[in-house]
């Protein structure tokens, strides 16, 4: 349960070894780079941008080729395949892929080219199809589209708007000067948008006719086609056929490379790793023959690192403790149970330098409260078993996912325990089923009590758990202040508050108000009552006097102290906030009961059973989903707002070691 101690490691070595040393560090993955001596004279950084970009480009090419393969030769994936994680490969395999990298990248480029060809062909097909469509109205025309008539006659082919009728055109021609006799207008095609026409007239009238037509909005077809429409269509179709054949060939060729998937993945990761190496290489200060490399390493890995580097290469391996003004990255180390909630802590913020890691303490409260909010034995069992199965089935899933699922598994177990304590199994399904289908109500007794029958009792317990949670938080604050040697702060901020609050609680317990809530009268011996009053008064007076201690002005100091006393309302609202433990627990149980009740409305018999089963499955799935979400959100809230509010700041930056950040495969470590 702790933040791992970091140390600064600096390595000064010969330039010829720099790549080998970097590679070794990358494989070990325990050092976060943080360079020093950057501005020293005689040291320069190497420009690796070009090399890096080349590698990145190749990694990208392999990625694109993989995307092409995925599109044309899809691999069947199950719904849960995203949990599978990266494949494990030996370093021999990646070395083999590295040897063949030229060949593999050539394949990748070929795949990309083929996919581009297919895309181009598809665009051409689309274009040709559009042309066919434009041609369709003219299909009955049996002269070429650009036919202009014989020696004595002129032919106009074109369209007018649908509102223009042939009669209107004849009328317009009759007004022309001279009147073009013998002009013939034929409608080839008409729809609601346009009218396709051929207009035949004597060659000598051509100009007059054309002008008249144009004034009516006559337009020639936009494409110039030298064939008859039917022939042109056949040509277009042949072209499409050819393009389709090309696509098919390209696709077949792509499919032929399906076996290269693994090589492509290996090569992509190989280049990605190299790009990262060069990125770091570019940040290293180097002189003519030496280089300096520095970074943070968790203390427990320092020995392994020194063994791997110091003993093999000629270099200076320097180990320093973290300086006062340095802010090292944070890496947590917890046992298997507690580490499962590290993700929750990370989403709030990691502990900053010197801060207490609250993960262990939080993990117990987290699982406890989560179970209480969901509190249904059957739901808990479902969650726990589902998470367990997924965890076992996909051992190689990502670390964050693994932790979350483990956390939900523990929460499921806790939910089950609370469900048994409160007698909730899918709500009241046992009662309903036994009553409706077997005629005799059977109730599984609650091990503790049924919250709905006695909500006040559970409310008191919820608030009591809240007080414990908050007091633990305040206690941690005290521990941290003691550790830093701030005894006065510890006394004023923690001890006085504890005295004040405990005194107030002890005063509250024997009162009538509490009795009416808890439904039991608590009677303390008079000595305890006196002690309670004394504690509260000492606490209050102490707080008034001490809270504003940084202020010299006595009036201001008292005023600030009095204001600090006002924080008691904050404590009150914090404690009341834990009433959500009761409210959300009730919500799960009551909605489950509603579902069961609705299911039982179909009555007895086959229809009743089927109806019940249907409502049962749908209803409980929904209830589980929505209450799981509620329990998760509100457990987080209780930790983040109420608990962390008492002592925790966070804001540490996560430890990001320089390692092989692969996308497809994990490389097996060899010793």
């Amino acid at each position, binding site marked *: 349960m702790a933040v791992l101690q970091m140390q600064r490691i600096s390595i000064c070595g010969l330039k010829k070894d720099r790549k080998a040393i970097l590679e070794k560090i990358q494989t070990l993955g325990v050092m976060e780079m943080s360079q020093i001596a950057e501005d020293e004279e005689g040291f320069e950084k190497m420009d690796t941008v070009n090399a890096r970009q080349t590698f990145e480009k190749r990694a990208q090419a392999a990625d694109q080729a993989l995307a092409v393969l995925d599109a044309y030769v899809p691999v069947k994936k199950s719904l849960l395949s995203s949990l599978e994680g990266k494949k494990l490969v030996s370093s021999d395999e990646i070395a083999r892929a590295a040897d063949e990298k030229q060949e593999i990248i050539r394949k990748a480029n070929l795949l990309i080219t083929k996919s581009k060809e297919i895309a181009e062909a598809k665009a051409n097909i689309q274009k040709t199809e559009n042309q066919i469509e434009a041609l369709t109205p003219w299909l009955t025309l049996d002269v070429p589209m650009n036919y202009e008539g014989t020696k004595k006659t002129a032919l106009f082919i074109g369209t007018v708007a649908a509102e223009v009728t042939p009669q209107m055109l004849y009328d317009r021609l009759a007004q022309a000067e001279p009147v073009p006799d013998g002009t013939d207008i034929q409608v080839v095609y008409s729809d609601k948008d346009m009218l396709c026409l051929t207009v035949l007239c004597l060659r000598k009238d051509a100009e007059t006719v054309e002008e008249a037509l144009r004034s009516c909005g006559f337009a020639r077809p936009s494409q110039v086609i030298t064939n008859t429409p039917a022939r042109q269509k056949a040509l277009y179709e042949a072209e499409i056929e050819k393009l389709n054949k090309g696509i098919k060939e390209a696709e077949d060729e792509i499919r032929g490379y399906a076996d290269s998937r693994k090589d492509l993945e290996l090569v992509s990761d190989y280049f990605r790793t190299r790009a990262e190496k060069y990125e770091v290489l570019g940040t290293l200060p180097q002189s003519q023959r030496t280089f300096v490399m520095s970074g943070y390493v968790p203390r427990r890995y320092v020995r392994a690192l020194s063994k791997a580097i110091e003993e093999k290469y000629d270099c200076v391996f320097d180990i320093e403790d973290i300086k006062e003004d340095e802010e090292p990255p944070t890496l947590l180390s917890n046992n298997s149970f507690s580490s499962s909630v590290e993700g*929750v802590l*990370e*989403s*709030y913020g990691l502990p900053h330098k010197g801060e207490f890691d609250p993960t262990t303490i939080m993990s117990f409260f987290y699982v406890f409260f989560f179970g209480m909010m969901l509190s249904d034995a059957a739901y808990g069992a479902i969650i726990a078993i589902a998470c367990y199965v997924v965890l076992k089935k996909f051992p190689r899933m990502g670390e964050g996912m693994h932790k979350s699922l483990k956390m939900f598994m523990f929460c499921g177990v806790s939910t089950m325990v609370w469900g048994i304590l409160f007698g909730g199994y899918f709500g009241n399904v046992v009662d309903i089923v036994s009553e409706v289908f077997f005629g005799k109500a059977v109730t599984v007794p609650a091990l503790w009590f049924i919250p*709905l029958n006695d*909500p*006040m009792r559970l*409310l008191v317990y919820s608030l009591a758990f809240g007080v414990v949670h908050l007091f633990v938080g305040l206690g941690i604050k005290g521990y941290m202040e003691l550790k830093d040697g701030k005894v006065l702060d510890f006394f004023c901020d923690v001890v006085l508050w504890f005295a004040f609050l405990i005194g107030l609680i002890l005063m509250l317990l024997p009162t009538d108000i509490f009795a009416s809530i808890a439904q039991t009268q608590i009677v303390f011996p008079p000595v305890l009552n006196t002690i309670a009053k004394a504690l509260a008064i000492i606490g209050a007076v102490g707080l008034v006097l001490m809270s504003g201690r940084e202020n010299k002005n006595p009036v201001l100091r008292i005023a600030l102290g009095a204001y600090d006393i006002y924080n008691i309302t904050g404590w009150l609202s914090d404690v*009341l*906030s834990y*009433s*959500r433990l*009761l*409210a*959300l627990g*009730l*919500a799960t149980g*009551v*909605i489950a*009961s*509603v579902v069961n*009740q609705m299911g039982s409305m179909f009555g007895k018999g086959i229809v009743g059973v089927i109806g019940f089963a249907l409502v049962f499955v749908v209803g409980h799935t929904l209830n589980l989903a*929505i209450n799981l*979400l*509620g329990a998760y*959100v*509100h457990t*987080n*809230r209780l930790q*983040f*707002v109420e608990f962390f509010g008492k002592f925790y700041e966070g804001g540490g930056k996560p430890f990001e070691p320089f390692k092989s950040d692969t996308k497809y495969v994990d490389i097996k470590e060899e010793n």
Partner: protein
Amino acid sequence: MSIWSNLGLVYALLGAAVAVFLAGAGSAIGVGIAGQAAAGVVTEDPSKFAKVLIMQLLPGTQGIYGLLVGFITLSKVGLLGGGAAELDPQTGLLILAACMPIGIVGLISGKYQGMTSAASIGIVAKKPDQFGKAMLFPAMVETYAILALLISILAVNAVQI
């Protein structure tokens, strides 16, 4: 005069109705507002679907709380299963009053939680790793719905029939 003295059950049922429809309406508004923001995020980046869906669902709880109080009320006055209890108008009005908190707070907090959720969806869109923090803002609003729920449950339970 007799009609007035028989209205006890009507008042009680009105209470259940107030709890369900006001809180439900609040949730519907809230989930609607958050849903619009969520849909916008998914058009840009479909991989954030699960995260924004959770955000969208956060204001949905008020409706459930209303349902819960409505259900407790119905079972209290015996409308579910056995015969309805004989209620005098005063008891009926007591139950109506008991249902008010979750109804009204549910309506208002549902809407505002929806608006906060929409803003938090904006956080998720730009910084998906801040999901934990983003989720807290809407949860803050919900606190008051939970407090109202608590009072409604306690009050309905406390009314003697």
